[in-house]
């Protein structure tokens, strides 16, 4: 079970969290201005890297806040967690 450092609450067991997909996928400011291809990319296309990966988690059984997390998908090492809006380290 991962030990995930919530930026607000500190390290907590994975059980308290829900995974929320890849991080830094910005919703287009004006969706109606996007082409079908652009919208499809936003909706469905995600990376699946071997190694460093930025993803979102929600501290569902804690502060209920979303945050970002850089995890090595090979070793499961968590390299950083940070609040939404902050740049990826």
């Amino acid at each position, binding site marked *: *079970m991962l*030990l995930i450092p919530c930026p607000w609450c500190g390290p907590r067991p994975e059980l308290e969290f829900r995974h929320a997909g890849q991080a830094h996928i910005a919703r287009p400011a004006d*969706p*109606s201005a996007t082409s079908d291809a652009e*919208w499809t990319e936003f909706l469905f296309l995600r990376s699946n890297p071997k190694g460093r990966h930025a993803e979102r988690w*929600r501290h569902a059984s804690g502060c209920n806040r*979303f945050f970002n997390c850089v995890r090595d998908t090979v*070793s499961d090492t968590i390299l950083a967690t940070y609040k*939404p809006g902050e740049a990826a380290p």
Partner: protein
Amino acid sequence: MTQPFRTEAGGQIDRSRPVRFSFDGRAYVGYAGDTLASALLANGVHLMGRSYKYHRPRGVLSAGAEEPNALVNVARDAARSAPNLRATQVELYEGLTATSQNRFPSLGFDLGAINDVCAPLLGAGFYYKTFMAPRGAWFKLYEPIIRHAAGLGRAPVAPDPDRYANRYAHCDLLIAGGGPAGVQAALEAAPSGQRIIIADDNPGFDSATLAGFANVTCLPRTTVFGYFPHNFLGLAERLTDHLADPGDRARERLWQVRAKQVSLATGAIERPLVFAGNDRPGIMLAGAARTYLDRYGVLVGKRVVVFTACDTAYAAAVALHRAGSQVVAILDLRDSPGGPEVAAVREAGIAVYPASSIVGTQGRLRVRSVTTGAGLRIACDAVLMSGGWTPSVHLYSQARGKLVYDEERQFFRPAGPLPGLRCVGACNGDLPESGGFLGVVPGQRGGPAFVDFQNDVKASDIQGAVAEGFRSIEHVKRYTTTGMATDQGKTSNMNALAIAAQQLGQPLPSVGLTTFRMPYTPVTLGLFAGAARGELFDPVRQAPLHDWAQAAGAVFEDVGLWKRARAFPRGGEDLHAAVARECRTVREAAGLFDASTLGKVEVVGPDAAEFLNRLYTNSWSKLAVGRCRYGLMLTEAGFVMDDGVVARLTVDRFHVTTTTTGAPRVLAQMEDYLQTEFPELKVWLTSTTEQWAVIAVQGPRARAILAPHVSDIDLAMPHMSVREGRVAGVPARLFRVSFTGELGFEVNVPAGQAQRVWDVLWAEAVKHGACAYGTEAMHVLRAEKGYIIVGQDTDGTVTPDDLGLGWAIGRSKPDFVGKRSLLREDLIKADRPQFVGLLTVDPVRVPEEGAQIVPVAAPAVGSHALGHVTSAYSSATLNRSIALGLVEGGRGRMGEVVHLTTASGTIPAVIAEPVFYDREGGRLDG
């Protein structure tokens, strides 16, 4: 009773406490401190099991967790019956009853041994090759026969009566293994005051020196079975399996430990040598023979042959010699064995034969003699073998540590420490240089030479697999099943690898190494289940009026974690009759319904309306204070995710309701967008699901029932409006809404006051001939009106337009979640599934929910379905069946006859409007 193979003195057993036990119905006596294996050996019993596939007689091979042969069943009664226990780890207690497995009719005479005669036909891949055709025969004929003949023990037939405990723990240092290296690691760390846990699967590991440290927790009889990410480890502590009377104590305890640092001191496991007939009872690992002598005071034989390529077997030979066994010969594969152990043997006068080997053995149920490579036949009653030692890297491997091959000593060892993890002692490869041998002993002349004892895999199977073209050890493993038994190849993996490598003509490390997985040794399911069984299997959520419903005779159904009253049968009514009565009563008089499980979210703040504009399809800016609107929430992909009534209490405060099971999902979606996409909006979200109880009062008499108990709200309030005031004296939010099509109100009161309000309204309702109704009637009533239930009539691929809910889309809004997706090509095509009503031609016949909707009565196999039935009921109001479903282009097919599949053929139905009752909606006004 005598124990002919027990030494006069020595060992850690308590000779003053004899322990009676039975094996296969025969009575024996051992001593306190014995394992089942050591006690049987003391009584001269080596034959403890039959092998998995060939039913060959098998004796104990080892003295520990790696045991592949001596798997037994230990039973206290029909329920407390545990199969496949390693006799080497079963602690003896007074009255222990053990039986052997996988034999019929008896261990000594087993009809299944015919497989051994047929062994040449039963090599690797036998099952795959032989039972290809005919297809059906596998399930009817071959599989039952094979399952009867092969396999391990039998599962108990009665429910497990034992309790299983669970404990979470944190520590600075967790040490797996209580041998010298583990205890040393604990002693080094203990003075610093760190919190230390040290676990060992033996009953009494050397923890005495640690007893003085309050910061050290010693866990005997505890297996560290799993190493999970971020230094999270699973430990299985056996609490009562060693007791004659377990009482009502928990049988086992699961420890879930988060450790800052882990030291693996898991030791090393000795390897067998691979030669013909190496599996006869009496042939065992040399180190095990020494353990039986040192720990249990047991001689494994009186006339012993040692076959080794490793110095440690010499020490065992000397020990047995001194204890009274006759060691007739030591056959060493090496040309010139040397070292202090060898010298000690020669001093003792034991004959050592260098460059020698065993190429065959004799004896049916016990080894009687061996044949050497030189053609000599040596009589004996036990053979001690040693092919060297393999570090126990299982947990290190589970922790995703990389292994490196030590060419010189022929084993894999940990490449180095990992963050928070180090290996110490033999586990780390810190073993004295003592020799070893991998692969098939040279000079074999035939006869099965076993590699994997538990799965009955022979050297020739692995050679054959390579000859058939398998290259990767992962494939060889799956084809031959070597290393795939419950022992995960603890004694066999290295030899299997070496044989495959030799056959491939490749260096051993390039063949690869299979991955070790948790658990290290088998773990009971009870350990994982813990207290989560029966009524505690899942949390149960009870609505505030649960007790009343129970007292009123409700039958309940599970909705998510909620228990909801499904119906309230009266005097002998079945469910069908109760639902029909409840529906009729609501339509003719009124009904009270506990709708408290509805999800509720309070959305508050200056930007609350704007926030809802973006989260729901509907437009909220112009919703007047005191009014309600049906809200539809989509996923960003444009599919219906949830629905509910939203009320505007003040300009900046909304009372949002969700479906019962959708509540957490809806709040998560709201929080997601609020926190990450629209953080500039000033909005606060609060789940109020459990704060408000909801009593629905529905039916033509609804207003009359409420009127005497509401003074400060004008009940002439319009449909889809909300008022705050008091109901039965309790502060309430009173909604005028309907999910039945009748005049309806929903009384929201604080959950703690729910019973009080219900009692008042119920007393009033009875005067009007009203009833309490359950979820089943609620479903029928809403279906008669064509109201959807998200999750039943939708499945995550349905758009608002598919449901005929296009009117709920705020098209003038610049944006809302899912809006852009509604223009996706796939979501606007003409043959989208559309929500329709279905009326069976035979009005009595109720279709099956989930039935396929097909265009012809007898569709060809594999032909295209038009859609499926989502809801189907028997409607008392309409005196016929009604159904709802999704049909391709359904709105353009009104009046068309389609066919609905059943388990036996199809039934015809006519496509109709999805509103079956009061299409004009006049009844909403009572």
